[in-house]
C-alpha cells in the first residue's frame, strides 16, 4: 500500500458494468509523484491524503461484488507520526 493525495476525478460513461456506481479518483502517489486512477472505497475527496491498496487484493474492498481494480483507496489519513 502507498500514500497519495487525491487530486481529481475521472468520469467515464462507457465502462465495464462492474464499475457502475464507482467513483474513480485521480491520486498522486507521494513516493514518485505519479498520478494513478484508483477506485474509491471510503468516500475520499479532493485534497485528502489517502492510502491506496494495489494489486488484486485491492478488488477485495468491494466483495462480494466483483470489481476490476488494481488500485483502491482504502483509507483516508487523519494524521501521521512522524508526518
Amino acid at each position: 500500500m502507498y500514500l497519495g493525495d487525491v487530486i481529481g476525478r475521472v468520469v467515464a460513461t462507457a465502462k465495464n458494468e462492474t464499475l457502475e456506481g464507482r467513483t474513480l479518483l485521480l491520486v498522486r502517489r507521494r513516493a514518485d509523484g505519479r498520478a494513478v486512477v484508483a477506485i474509491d472505497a471510503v468516500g475520499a475527496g479532493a485534497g485528502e491524503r489517502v492510502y491506496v491498496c494495489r494489486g488484486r487484493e485491492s478488488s477485495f474492498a468491494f466483495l462480494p461484488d466483483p470489481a476490476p481494480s488494481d488500485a483502491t483507496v482504502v483509507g483516508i489519513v487523519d494524521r501521521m507520526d512522524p508526518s
Partner: protein
Amino acid sequence: MQLARVIGTVVATRKDARLEGKKLLICRPVDVDGGDEAGYVVAVDTVSAGYRETVLVVQGSSARMSSGCEDRPVDAAIVGIVDAVSRDS
C-alpha cells in the same frame, strides 16, 4: 488503473480459445494532461473503445475481475472510456 490512449489493434487467428471474439487493442499510457508516456500494453476491450480514445486500463490479475474477462487469460483490460479528467489542484 492507468489512463491510456488506444493506438492500434492486434489481429491473431491462432490463439488461446478463451480469447475468441475478444478485441485486442494496443494502448499507450498517457499522463493526466493526455501526454504520451513510455511503453504500451495490449489490453482486451470490454467497452467497445475505438482508436485514439482515452481509456482506463486495469492490469494484473484484477483484469480478470472485469465482466467478460472471467476465467480468461487476460492480464490487461480496458474497463472504461474516459469522458473527462478533472483536477482539483
